[in-house]
């Protein structure tokens, strides 16, 4: 059973970067996350990056695309995704996003695929555990190691997954610190104002005014 390499079909976005023959061409439009294995080079890049554009961008709150697509200005992106265990994007909310290059459905799907793959890869190459599954074979929640952020030169992706498969993704400026507490707080807001809302039908997009209000308030304080 395990040999039925789920990876071929399941490891969508990351896997297909290395298989040009894949029919899923559109993913090449995705901003390819450059995972930095070496913390040294990462921080060097951060400094370079920070000096060049951070100050000029930070106070600018308008979402106008200032730079040509693809150059990555490193603007202060602030975007939140919430997925449930079935890959349904329950919430997409942006407070600041310099560019939109993909249609929303594609964007959500790629994001979910990225996390799904990344989780599988990080568990597979974990040098501290012996117990490993074949790459792409789905993991149980809480199984294997878990990652909680990665950085590129233009953004940082912060990630939290509950054992019930709720995935929270917060995209921030690459220089923001550890966001695990923020994500936990957002999870609590989700529980309070979405899950306990008697008029919310589970598995449907979140349209709870009370949740959005608290979320906006929190984000204003948390990331400024």
């Amino acid at each position: 059973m395990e040999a039925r390499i789920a990876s071929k079909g399941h490891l969508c976005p990351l896997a297909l970067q290395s298989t040009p023959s894949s029919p899923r061409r559109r993913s090449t439009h995705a901003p390819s996350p450059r995972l930095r294995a070496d913390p040294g080079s990462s921080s060097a890049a951060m400094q370079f990056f920070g000096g060049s554009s951070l100050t000029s961008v930070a106070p600018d709150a308008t979402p106008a695309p200032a730079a040509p697509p693809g150059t990555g200005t490193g603007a202060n992106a602030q975007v939140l995704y919430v997925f449930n265990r079935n890959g349904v994007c329950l919430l997409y909310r942006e407070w600041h996003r310099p560019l939109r290059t993909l249609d929303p459905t594609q964007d959500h799907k790629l994001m979910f695929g990225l996390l799904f793959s990344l989780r599988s890869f990080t568990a597979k190459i974990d040098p501290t555990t012996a117990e490993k599954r074949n790459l792409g074979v789905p993991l149980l929640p809480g199984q294997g190691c878990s990652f909680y952020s990665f950085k590129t030169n233009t953004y940082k992706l912060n990630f939290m997954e509950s054992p019930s498969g709720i995935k929270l993704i917060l995209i921030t400026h690459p220089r923001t610190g550890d966001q695990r507490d923020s994500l936990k707080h957002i999870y609590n807001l989700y529980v309070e104002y979405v899950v306990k809302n008697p008029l919310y039908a589970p598995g449907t997009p979140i349209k709870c005014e009370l949740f959005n209000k608290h979320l906006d308030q929190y984000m204003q304080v948390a990331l400024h």
Partner: protein
Amino acid sequence: MPPPTAPKSGDALFASVDRVNAELFTLTYGAIVRQLLTDLEEVEEVNKQLDQIRDARVEYSNGLADLRSPKFLGYNIGTRLVDEFLAKSNVSRCVDFKETADVIAKLGFKMFLGVTATVTNWDAEGTSCSFVLEDNPLVDFVELPDTCQGLQYCNLLSGVIRGALEMVSMKTEVTWVRDMLRGDDAYEMRVKLIKQVPEEYPYKDDD
């Protein structure tokens, strides 16, 4: 590996959450059960008039009726409540069934109902066990009338457990073994792990 923040104890957990009078909970549950019974009776009347009594009833009892039974309500509650539990308890992984059963008994019941359950009667494979409850806030003021002797009043609880476990990838079967409303000496639920279902990549290759 221990999780970064250790899970709270059952008592600490119950003390940390907002609470309400158990009677509001119990009486509301009673009102729900009463509403379900009324609705079902009405439907049977309709069935009689349509003169398809037997078939319609069988279909009803196999399909729709299940949707309206307290068990189904419980299942829905379980699928929601699991997130509340995870958010407040600091439990960060539920991979092992035995460990999970313990967590439910010591923390889960306590956090929501203020009571603890005992986990007992494990089978040799470690895939089924019993939860025994001595105190059950659902049943205060309840006595099953003669017409409802077939009613599994506490099915809400078994549904909750089934629903919550399904959200952490454990497919289970939950059945009542002992029920004080039927004259037994305690409340005992048998929970059997059918399989653990990992999260699948939800999209098809070509979407």
